[in-house]
Every structure is written in C-alpha cells, then in structure tokens.
C-alpha cells in the first residue's frame, strides 16, 4: 500500500513529493502523520485539497465551525492527546450475529479514553492527534479487548474524524 504523510501545515506528501491539490488517488493510501500533527492540521488539509470537502456531508459545516475558532492555543487540560483508532466488533446477542468495523476519534487521558462530543472544537484544535491501534471486541466484552497494530487509509481517516465531529455542537451554556 502506498504511504502518504499528512503534514502539520495541511499538505500531503507521497515519496517526498507534495501531492497535487486535485488528486483523489491518494484516498486509498496508508496514512502517516507528520511531526506535530494536530486537529488543526486536519482542517488545514481541506484548505489545500478542496476536493476532499465533498467526501462527507458534514465537512463544510465542520470547516465553518473551525474558521470561527481562535487561531491558536485551542487546547484543554482534560485530555493528553486525541487518538484515532479502529474497532472490529463481533456481536452475537440480541439479534442476528454480525461483525462491525468502525473508526473512532477520542480523547486520551492516561489509560482512559474520553468521548469528544462534549468538548468544544475550540478546545481540541491544537491537541496532538495520533493514530491508534485496532481494538477487537468479542460479543460485547469491552473489558478483555484485544489490540493489534493496524494501518488507516486517507478515506477512513477523513470520514471517521468528520463522523465524530458531526456529533459536536453542545451549546456552551449546556456544558457548564
């Protein structure tokens, strides 16, 4: 699988060359995050690669909210960093047995993971963003979760983060 590196300034590099702005071929490439990558870097990518905005219904709305945030110091003490990971979950009962694979962006504090939907975007933008592992959950047993190294492609990375950010929007007065 071809590898691309997402840089802090939003640019994408493949084999040490910057990828042109209208390229969609990189969507299936394995993602590596450059030094100092944050959630703000993720949004900067859409300014350089405007075609990627069309990948999800919520991208445009998320970008609009990003633009309303301060230009720096958007951090929060409640979490150490943001982590993007994959979950494979086998579900047996109730209902038909099925297997689900999905991506999650969450906050990490020590060994604990925290949902980000209750934090405001302006407190997350400058938090470091890291790629996590694959978590394997069997029949709802979330205590004994197996963890494996894995890779993410660019489509999974964008779609997973935007999905998660689409749940944000709690008014400030409700977060008191």
């Amino acid at each position, binding site marked *: 699988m071809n590898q691309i590196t997402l840089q802090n300034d939003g640019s994408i590099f493949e084999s040490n060359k910057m990828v042109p702005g209208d390229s969609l071929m990189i969507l299936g490439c394995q993602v590596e995050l450059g030094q100092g990558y944050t959630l703000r870097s993720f949004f900067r990518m859409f300014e350089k690669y405007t075609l990627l905005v069309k990948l999800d219904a919520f991208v445009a709305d998320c970008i609009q909210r990003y633009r309303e945030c301060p230009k720096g110091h958007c951090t929060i003490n409640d979490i150490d960093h943001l982590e993007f990971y994959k979950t494979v*979950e086998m579900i047996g009962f109730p209902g038909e047995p099925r297997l*689900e694979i999905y991506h999650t962006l969450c906050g990490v504090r020590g060994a604990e993971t925290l949902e980000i939907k209750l934090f405001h975007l302006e407190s997350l933008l400058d938090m470091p963003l890291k790629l996590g592992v694959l978590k394997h959950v069997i029949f709802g047993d979330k205590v004994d979760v197996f963890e494996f190294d894995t890779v993410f492609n660019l489509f999974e990375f964008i779609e997973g983060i935007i999905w998660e950010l689409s749940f944000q*929007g709690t008014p400030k007065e409700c977060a008191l």
Partner: protein
Amino acid sequence: MFKKLLFATTASPTCDNAAKVAFDLELKWDAKLIILHVFGVPSRGYSPFVTDARTGEAEEPDADYADWVKEEMKNTYGELLEDSENSVIEAVVGAPHREILRMARKEKVDMIIMGAHTRQEDVGATRYRAIAGSTMQKVAKAARCPVVIISRPCTTCWKLFSNIVIGLDFSKASQYAFLWAYKLAKEVGARLHIFHACDISSGNFGEIQGQNEIEQEIAAARKKIETTYISKMKGYDNYDIEIWEGIPYVEILKFSREKQGDLIVMAHHTRDIEPEQALLGSTVEQVVLRAACPVASVNHPDKVADMDV
C-alpha cells in the same frame, strides 16, 4: 398543556439525561410523571423469564420481583425523586415498545420522554447499526402523542425555554408537528423558528441543480409555508421563517445551533405516507443523535385535535 407525562426508561445510565428532563418537566408543568421500566426476555409471546440486569441470569418474574425492580428504580432516581411531587414508578414485563404504547394509551399521556439508545455506546459504533434505538423508533412511529427524545445532557433547554425549531417537510404529519410546536410556543412564550430545507442531494444522478432552480424552489416553499402554516397562527407574531438548501438533516442541525434551539420538533418521515407504515425517517434519526437539544417527533393529530387542522 402537559398534565400527564410518561418517562420510558431502561433505568440505566443511558437514560440519565432523559430522566433529568422528565423530572424537570414534571415540576415545570405541575404534571403527573409516570416512570416506566419494561423488563423481559424478547420472545414471541409473554416471556416466562426476565434477564436480571445486574447478574445477567434468567429469573422468573413475579409480583415480588417487580416490586424489587421498582425499589431499585427508586434508588436509581433517588435524588430526582426527592424533589418530585407527583410521580409514580411502574415496572412491567413484556416487549418494551408494546408496553410503553399500552401505558401511554391507557393513561392518555400528553407526551412520552425517552433516551435515544438502549445501550451506552460510542458514537462511532452507531454508524453501521440501526442508528437510533429500535424501541424508540417503534414508539415514535406508533405513539398517538408526541415523543421527546433526549440523547445528551441538557441543562437549560426546558427551564429557559425560548427557541423552538420546527422542521417542516410539507407532509400531513408535518402539519400536526407544526400545530403542536405552535401550541407549545404560544403557551411558553417561545420564539417559533419555522424551517424547511430544500433537499438538493436527491436529484437525478449526475444532475446538478442550477442556482435559479434552487431559488425558485425556495420561493415556492416560502409561499407554501405562508399559505398553509402561517394562516393557522391567528395573529401570533413571534416567529420567523427560514429556508435553506442542502442535505436536510445537516441543515436543520446547523439552523438549530445558530438559533440556539431548545427543542426541535419534526414529523417522522419525509414522504407523505400513512404514519403506521412509515419508518422513522432517516432525517429524524440523524437529527436525534446529533442535536444538542431534545427532539420531539409528532406523528398524529391527537394532541392538536382542539386546534384548527
């Protein structure tokens, strides 16, 4: 406006946010609050067993067991019950949606309050599943009264109740939803934000709508709102109308956030079909999960029967 409320709960932390709103409403409206928990193993008929939430073991339910469940519910909602003046706890065995609807019909409740999920899950996990809880879907589809769904903590919405967003899709159910939202807005003195989204995502494949065409659609929708809905408001002027183009659920979420909506009211489905045959529309599901405020789905005219439909 609300004399009897039914709070359908799993009596687990997933319903805590809904519980706070339910108890708030009871006090605000001086209403009777029925707190209902349905337990039992899913089966085709009456189940002789229930699954104990704590041990996971199958138990045979009897009167003592139901009393014990009620006692546990009293502990769960102890703090909220302290301030409550007029609430009763009910625990019954059966299929949850059927028992909730049965209780709502028997008690002639004015509103059902529920959480969006039956399990505490990561938002990521809901992506490929039936998005909203299936009990909630079934109740919202068939209930004769409005169903308010709460999926996140809401500290201000019902106490500082000032902005009601009504999402219209011009279906028949949408008219009932509008009348209910109007009735509520008038009662509490809230501003009614009347909203419609022109769906520009559902054109023929590859066909892109021109700006003129979209603007014509917006103008037609505005005219329709003015003739069909505004005429029913009889002098009430605390409202505004907005029509945006885009994907309906994205636009209604954006609109509600912009207007700091305290409640979103919607009909269940986007197509004009019989309510009994309509599945909860995907627009409502997407809004329920993502909205920061409670979402009320209204499907039947029963609670607006006194108004000019």
